[in-house]
C-alpha cells in the first residue's frame, strides 16, 4: 500500500513510500527498479531515527527538500532507473556501456560531478 507519494515539479519523478503487509517500509521511485527499505536506512544519511517507518519518511523528506542527490540512468534515450546516491564518483566508476547518468536534485537542479 502506498502511504506517501510526491511528484516532482517537472513530472519526471514520482517518489513513493510503500508499506507491505508485514510492516516493511519501502522507498523508491514509481515504475523504476531501485528502492530501499527502512531497516537499511536506519544508519544512513545521518538519521537519528529509531524505526524503519520514521527512517523512510525522513529520507523521503530529505529527497524532496533537495538534500539528497539523485541519479537518473538513461540508456538509448530511455530512463531505466532513478536512485539516490551518496557517492557520485562511484556512480561514474560503474557506469554501464551506453548508459548516461544525470545527476540532479528533486527540484530538477543539476549537479555537475567534479
Amino acid at each position, binding site marked *: 500500500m502506498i502511504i506517501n507519494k510526491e511528484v*516532482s*515539479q*517537472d513530472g*519526471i519523478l514520482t517518489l513513493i513510500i*510503500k508499506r*507491505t503487509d508485514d510492516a*516493511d517500509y*519501502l522507498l*523508491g521511485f514509481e515504475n523504476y*527498479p*531501485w*528502492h*530501499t*527499505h527502512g*531497516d*537499511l536506512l536506519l*544508519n*544512513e*544519511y*545521518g538519521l537519528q531515527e529509531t524505526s524503519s517507518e520514521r527512517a523512510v519518511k525522513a529520507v523521503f523528506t*530529505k529527497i524532496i527538500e533537495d*538534500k*539528497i*542527490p539523485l541519479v*537518473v540512468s*538513461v540508456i538509448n*534515450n530511455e530512463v531505466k532507473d532513478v*536512485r539516490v*546516491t*551518496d*557517492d*557520485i*564518483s*562511484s556512480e*561514474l*566508476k*560503474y*557506469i*554501464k*556501456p*551506453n*548508459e*548516461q*547518468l*544525470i*545527476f*540532479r*536534485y528533486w*527540484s*530538477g*537542479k*543539476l*549537479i*555537475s*560531478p*567534479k
Partner: protein
Amino acid sequence: MDGPPIGLPGAPPPPPVGISGIPPPIPTPGLPVDPSVVPPTNDAGKGNIDETGDALSGPMRSTPDDGSKPNDKKYDPDQSALIDLAKEAENKQNLTQNDAQTLIDWANEYKAPARDDTQKDHWGNVPHIHIGPVNHIPVKNTK
C-alpha cells in the same frame, strides 16, 4: 557457502563466480568529453545548472575535499570490497541465486547492511538483494 571467505581480513573477498571480470566502461562514441554526464532532456533544469559542481556542499556532501571516496569513511575495507562486488553484480544483472547468497553471507560476516529479498515480490515482482548502499540487485531464477 561452507565457510568464511578466503583471503581475509584486510583483502577484498574473492568474487563469487559469475560477477568478476567486468570490463571497464566503454565510452559512448560521439558524446562530449565526459560521456557519462549529459544534460537533461527536459526543461526543468535549464538555467539552473550548478556550474561549480558545488551542489554537494553542505550537510549531505559526501565527497571529501581530499578526493577520497566517502565510502572510505563509512565502510571498512572489507565492506567496501563487498560493495564494489555488489555494484558489479548490479551492473551485470546476471546474479545467480548462489552468488546472491554468497554476497549476503559476506555482508553478514562483515556486518554490512544487507537484505535477502529473493523470495519477496514487494517491488516489481523481481527477486533481488540489497548490499550496503547498492539497492535492488536483481537475482536470476537459476542457481
